[in-house]
């Protein structure tokens, strides 16, 4: 009985593992078409989703207290799985560029996904560190996956150096915290802080924060983002901006709310300062971008600013808003990147100007992109709007009117660059000769053909974006139930 129960709480992890090993072995013995490979692994992940739904809202503790199953973990695993499906489908669309090694690519994505599941359930700093590293090391491989592409290699090296540096900071911070507390369990750290603090711990706290700051691209640690995002293969960019970022925020949540605790939070002014600076930096830098992936790199920094705003508020309302925002962001960004992968392939260029007239070539793709962009921009009645609404509301409810005002004004700045993309897609139907700087002219005027799986997934994402913006209550309940775990006494 006990065994069974213990076994079933690992259902989702085992599911991913089975999908991973099955495909690994299958790939060893028989070469199959990447498209089929992607399709079968997506089907596998759909089963994982089912096991996740079954586990809701189960709570359990296992592996000597290192593995905590709770609604928050299950919800986050759901987000990871959905985004993982998105990345796999992108890899399928991208498989021509990945060439023979497309299947390996998918396997590494699955590996990283496996790691992210343990991250969502981590209950102490060492598991947290290992699982984050797990994802990061997968990304070292993925960012430099196109061996013949200089940009990809550059991205890989940059990410490697920055990633290794941040991991070192993170680990050093953990060792200092261990020195001060004598344990790495979140609960123990909280107990320690209840009685007092030490300078060791304070230094450790900031080092860990810096380590996580690199992963989520928080303000002074965001400089690597544009180059890495631009150079990486597009599915990896999506992975970085959705899964890796969500993972970073999970780590931040766990560390801040489970270990450090809201009362202490050292200096709440820290996030009150970092959030608007990150927000404004990302938005202002995004204004002048001409490359689609670079635009999304900077805009993702801006989104980090909003997410940090929820953390700066440091209460349940703020965290709920942040998790809602993460879900909305994952949906919208997955949809956007899937479109970018296909469009970049078909248009032969990643420049924004190459998107000119996309609406003519594929009304479906551009329609989805339109919805995703408006959702990211925070336009009602889409998911992004309600997420931003919750964040601003949380800020106002705490009395940070000025913070809410900064957040609100930034919505308009972001709207400018998102609408500029819409403008290219819809407004300019006439092809003007050499305006596309460096990029190839669109190869043909044919309509872009989409595979059924991609079509369905895009439709589901768009429907989800609209649903989250209109029928907010059910998701909000889910989020509320799951964040309760972060605020245990």
């Amino acid at each position, binding site marked *: 009985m006990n065994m069974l129960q213990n076994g079933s709480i690992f259902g989702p992890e085992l599911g991913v593992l089975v999908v991973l090993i099955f495909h690994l072995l299958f790939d060893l013995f028989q070469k199959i078409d990447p498209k089929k490979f992607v399709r079968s692994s997506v089907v596998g992940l759909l089963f994982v989703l089912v096991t996740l739904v079954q586990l809701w809202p189960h709570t359990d503790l296992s592996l000597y207290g290192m593995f905590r199953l709770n609604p928050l973990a299950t919800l986050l695993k759901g987000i990871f799985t959905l985004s993982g499906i998105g990345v796999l489908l992108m890899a399928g669309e991208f498989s021509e560029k990945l060439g023979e090694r497309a299947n390996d690519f998918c396997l590494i994505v699955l590996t990283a996904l496996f790691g992210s599941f343990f991250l969502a359930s981590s209950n102490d700093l060492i598991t947290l560190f290992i699982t984050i590293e797990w994802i990061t090391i997968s990304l070292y491989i993925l960012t430099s996956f196109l061996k013949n592409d200089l940009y990809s290699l550059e991205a890989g090296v940059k990410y490697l150096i920055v990633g290794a540096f941040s991991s070192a900071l993170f680990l050093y911070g953990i060792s200092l915290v261990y020195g001060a507390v004598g344990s790495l369990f979140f609960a123990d750290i909280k107990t320690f802080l209840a009685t007092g603090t030490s300078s060791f711990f304070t230094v450790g706290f900031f080092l860990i924060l810096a380590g996580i700051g690199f992963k989520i691209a928080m303000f002074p640690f965001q400089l690597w983002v544009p180059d890495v995002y631009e150079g990486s293969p597009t599915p990896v960019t999506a992975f970085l901006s959705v899964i890796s970022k969500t993972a970073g925020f999970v780590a931040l949540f766990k560390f801040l709310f489970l270990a450090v605790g809201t009362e202490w939070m050292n200096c709440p002014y820290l996030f009150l300062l970092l959030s608007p600076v990150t927000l404004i930096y990302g938005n202002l830098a995004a204004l002048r971008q001409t490359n689609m992936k670079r635009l999304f790199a900077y805009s993702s920094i801006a989104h980090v600013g909003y997410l940090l705003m929820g953390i700066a508020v440091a209460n349940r309302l703020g965290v709920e808003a942040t998790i809602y925002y993460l879900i909305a962001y994952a949906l919208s960004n997955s949809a956007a990147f899937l479109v970018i992968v296909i469009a970049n392939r078909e248009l032969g260029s990643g420049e924004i100007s190459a998107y000119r007239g996309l609406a003519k070539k594929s*009304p479906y793709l551009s329609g989805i992109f339109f919805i995703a962009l*408006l959702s990211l921009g925070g*336009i*009602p*009645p889409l998911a992004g*709007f309600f997420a931003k*609404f919750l964040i*601003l*509301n949380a800020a*106002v*409810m705490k*009395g940070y*009117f000025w913070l*809410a*005002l900064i957040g*609100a*004004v930034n*919505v*308009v700045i972001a*709207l*400018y660059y998102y*609408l*500029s993309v*819409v*403008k290219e897609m*819809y*407004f300019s139907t006439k092809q003007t000769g050499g305006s596309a700087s460096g990029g190839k002219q669109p190869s043909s005027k044919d309509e872009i053909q989409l595979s059924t799986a991609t079509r369905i997934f895009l439709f589901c994402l768009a429907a989800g974006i609209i649903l989250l913006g209109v029928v*907010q*209550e059910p998701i*909000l*309940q889910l989020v*509320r139930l799951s964040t309760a775990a972060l605020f245990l006494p």
Partner: protein
Amino acid sequence: MTGIRGAMLNLLVPALILLPLAAAGLILLLPPKRDFETRAVAIFTTFLTLVLSVILVLNFKPEAELFQFRTYIPWVSSLGISFHTGLDGMGVVMVLLHGILSFAGALVSRSINQNVKLYFVFYLLLVSSIFGVFSSLDLFFLYLFYEMSVIPLYPLIGIWGSQNREYASMKLTLYISLGAVVALVGLLSVYFMSGLQTFDLLVLQQASFPTQFQFWCAPLMIFGFSVIASLWPFHSWSPIGYAAAPTAVSMLHAGVLKKLGIFIILRVVLTLLPEGAQLWFPIVAILCVINVLYGAWAAMAQKDMKFVIGFASVSHMGYAFLGLASLNELGLTGTVFFMFAHGIMAALCFALIGFIYDQTHTRMIPDLGGLAKQIPFISVCFIAAAFASSGLPGFANFVSELLIFFGSWEIYRWQTILAIFGIVVTATYMLRMIRNVFFGELKPEWNKIEDARGFCGKLPYGLLVTILLIFGLWPSLLLNIIRPSTANISERFVIANVASANHRPNDVPRGGEK
């Protein structure tokens, strides 16, 4: 019997919002290249919403409770958000205005030939969200519909617009959105300060807010929402936006969207933050005079007909703000009636300019001339619109402007005198435009242009002129409906004045001083 009928009537209000949405979905599902069916669906839907809004107006009982036809559905109960719709007198009048204009707009959209499907999807989204703003009694949904109405304008102007459309649509969207988000912070602050955990307007109206809070929160909302009403100095998006927009969008924008800002200020700011409004409205009263005079003078200098009407509408919105700033029943009633009259008039002007442009492919006044001989029906309509615009008795605009001036005279003497002077300027540029476009020598290149033909061709223009005349000759039809709602708002200020007078006996209310 009445119970069932009442329930059915209540359902009509959400139906106004949902019908255009459903039609937009239907059009999306239609196979491509079915332009005729698409148009038919759009015209039929807007006609249906017009019929529904007429039914609502006819069934509205001014003597009964303030908000009628109410529907209440809890939406996000943990945050106190509910889908709460209902109409008071001014709401029902604005719904009627929007019903008329969206139908007329769908009719004149015949000149749209490319990408018809997408055009009507965005058009119907716009129509739906504006109905939402007029009928929402929940601040969350009010804001949601408000912001939702701004976004379709971007593709509508950008894709189907004319000169300078990319710049104009971006400027318009960003300006209005900026105003909206600033106002959103104000709305959230109200939610926070009330401590009632609800966005329901009727519940929030019971709360009272500290004066200090009202002082800084009111401007967020007043100036945030007045961007869309093109209060000087936030007006610069307006003329170029109208010039670039396709005809139906100019009609809806100048006719209805511009009124959203004033409508929300009336409904939300004046009822929730009366003290804040009183503190800031003297400034609005000065700004709106600049609106009137600056807009009028700018209109004088224009050569493009759409720019003339665009600046004229900036100028005219000054009157609406003046009535608003007067904060008494006369002025507020005048403002609401003015919004109705001006909406019909501005839409009529844009529709007629659109017609002329489709025929001649120019809107430049010097290029035209003598058109009255070729297109007598259009000319007569345009002359009627120009008369209405310059406030000639017999048209609804005259009555409403009169009410506004009566209302504002008590408080803002100089501003009223200057604003009345604006009417003279309006008459000057409108009549000058009529002379140069419709009279004089007919240029040979316009020998072949044709007048509006057939019932459907004449319907949108004839309908709008008739409405202007009907309510100009018999204004009490609408005034009786409007008055209870504006009286309810102005009473708050009488009470507030008395209260402050009691507090500080030396401080005589402004109105009595002069």
